[in-house]
């Protein structure tokens, strides 16, 4: 995925430079300025993620989600998903292992959904672009929405519906 992103960027950058060197320079300047602007938040979030993930490692998450069942387990799973930041290629296999170890589909759906839609740790970045009100509302709404996802996916994947 990274490679294709780089290829596309290089092709477009090349095409841009071929058409207009000045404009390309301007684009790169803008890119740098935009990056420099958000850099403090990025660095802060990255260290914060490191701190949280040292505590919330895969083992700890498995313990939290794997043992819990019922509505409390769903809430816990959604909370864990909200505060953690795990790339998909680690999250999905972990979720699959949790399932095979007996975790419920509802809990796993709550975890996966909130993991992707809610970002408590990236809030400092989101606030920088969207303001406090929007960033908080979006995350809260996405958190609540994860319960609806959990309910429906849990029933369908668990074979209770359809």
């Amino acid at each position: 995925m990274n490679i294709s992103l780089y290829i596309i960027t290089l092709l477009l950058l090349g095409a841009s430079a071929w058409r207009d060197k000045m404009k390309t320079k301007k684009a790169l300047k803008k890119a740098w300025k935009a990056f420099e602007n958000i850099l403090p938040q990025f660095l802060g979030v990255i260290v914060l993620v490191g701190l949280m993930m040292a505590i919330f490692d895969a083992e700890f998450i498995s313990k939290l989600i794997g043992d819990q069942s019922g509505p409390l387990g769903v809430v816990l799973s959604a909370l864990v998903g909200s505060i953690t930041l795990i790339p998909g290629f680690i999250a999905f296999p972990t979720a699959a292992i949790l399932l095979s170890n007996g975790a419920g589909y509802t809990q796993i759906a709550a975890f996966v959904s909130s993991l992707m839609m809610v970002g408590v740790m990236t809030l400092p970045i989101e606030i920088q672009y969207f303001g406090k009100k929007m960033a908080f509302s979006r995350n809260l709404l996405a958190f609540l929405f994860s319960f609806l996802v959990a309910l429906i996916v849990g029933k369908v994947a668990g074979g209770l519906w359809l």
Partner: protein
Amino acid sequence: MAIIKRYRFFLITCTAFLLLWIINQELGRKALLVTGYSLKEMILIIPPIFILLGLLDVWVPRETMMTYMGDHSGIKGVFLAFFIGSAAAGPLYGAFPIAAVFMKKGVKFSNVLIFIGAWSTTKIPMFLFELSSLGARFAVTRLLVDIPGIFLMATFLSKQLSKNEIQSLYAKAETL
């Protein structure tokens, strides 16, 4: 002083990291490892994203973006926002700078939110991965619930803000 203020949050997290290291070296080492990993991910994914948005900013006129995704773009803008978000790669924090350029170019606020929603949850490569890890019933059902969810949440959220609040967000995007 300005620099310290800008990097305040980073300095606080670094202090917390040092404290963790002093209290529990093993955890500190683990935190360093994860931070290193995220830093690598950031270094890999961030340059192309920012270069792409620099190019977008310079080459695509505001009028063009407004025609396709602006206030009067209708269903076309909705689909484009959804499609661009779904075709994306990378973590959600990569979507925010792009959203800022969208705002700069006059993209309708609800379309910006649809883009964010799609990026967060219906990314195509991630869907394929979910399909193989958690099975078709799980992945397809989640996708089918998420798609209307993204539209409903975008509509609801864009109504949360007043015209003035949206305008000030757009004005702020100009400076980013």
